[in-house]
């Protein structure tokens, strides 16, 4: 079931979203095979190891106890902390376990290489029936990310599925950094720049990475 949903997500990535403000598509197809495998693997692990992890979580749940936090969120959090995805870290804030501080390293061979990007993520009450809310806090020059750090990504909107997770969302955002898509822009000016003079736009993105994402 989980796998099917993920496959659907991957195959549907070329359709334009009906959302007028964010006609975004997912970069899933552009992910290297290994990352796709990882994504599917996560979904399986999630379905399969439920019992075992739940018991573990109960013994460790003192610090996790944040009034009625759903088990799914506790489990996802534990996995994020114990087995972080390469180049991604996500940790819940102390006073709100639905609110995560996220760091994503700029992927190698992208204009964001060498950058450390800070994001914030919130799991709304409806999660996992509704997508997490995510935005960049670090300034970034990218056609699918706007000035307020909001991200144009279909799985955060109409292509969300409860089979996806925090981890898959963050991997997709990482992939979006490797594959800017100026045809589905959120920032019109940046997209225009990208389409008219890609080399120069990439230079600006590198420059912004040095200026704002140095991790200092």
């Amino acid at each position: 079931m989980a796998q099917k949903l993920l496959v659907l997500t991957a195959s549907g990535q070329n359709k334009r979203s009906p959302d007028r403000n964010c006609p975004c598509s997912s970069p899933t197809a552009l992910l290297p095979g290994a990352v796709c495998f990882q994504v599917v693997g996560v979904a399986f692990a999630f379905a399969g190891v439920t019992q075992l992890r739940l018991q573990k979580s109960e013994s460790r749940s003192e610090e996790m106890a944040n009034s009625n936090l759903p088990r799914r969120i506790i489990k996802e959090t534990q996995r994020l902390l114990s087995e972080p995805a390469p180049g991604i870290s996500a940790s819940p804030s102390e006073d709100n376990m639905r609110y995560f501080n996220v760091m994503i390293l700029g992927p190698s061979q992208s204009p964001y290489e060498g950058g450390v990007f800070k994001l914030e993520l919130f799991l709304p009450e409806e999660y996992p029936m509704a997508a997490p809310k995510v935005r960049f806090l670090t300034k970034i020059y990218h056609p699918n990310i706007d000035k307020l750090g909001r991200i144009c990504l279909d799985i955060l909107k109409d292509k969300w599925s409860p089979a996806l997770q925090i981890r898959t969302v963050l991997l997709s955002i990482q992939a979006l950094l490797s594959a800017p898509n100026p045809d589905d822009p959120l920032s019109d000016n940046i997209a225009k720049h990208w389409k008219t003079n890609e080399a120069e736009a990439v230079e600006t993105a590198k420059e912004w990475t040095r200026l704002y994402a140095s991790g200092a």
Partner: protein
Amino acid sequence: MSLGNSGGSSVVVPRNFRLLEELERGEKGIGDGTVSYGMDDADDIYMRSWTGTIIGPHNSVHEGRIYQLKLFCDKDYPDKPPTVRFHSRINMTCVNSDTGVVEPKKFSMLANWQRDYMMEHILTNLKKEMAAPHNRKLVQPPEGRVKQERIPALQSTSQG
């Protein structure tokens, strides 16, 4: 989201996501359009400064007037209310006539602030307040006057 709902859900929407939600609501337009608001600085990732507009209610001296307000949402918003200040001159019992600041002591919504109150509620309540018996007949300054910028603190809060 209901006004003044203190029980029920234990999910706390963090400040920034709450303000993003308010931004989207503001962009769509609120109710009959007699109150509106928007962000002042599209580059401010912390979304602190906002401008609100109230069209004066019928059957009051404010009818037909357009009032501009500045709302400042600090880092502790929405746990704490924003600072609210009339940019346009207005004579109103809850507004300091020198600074234009809406005084929490005289405007119960700010004094008894609850976390799920939003900027649109402040504006809607201020509009109601304009039409209240103690305000609706107060003599008003000439129309179109704008306050001098007297509160530099509101503009220069750029730390963090």
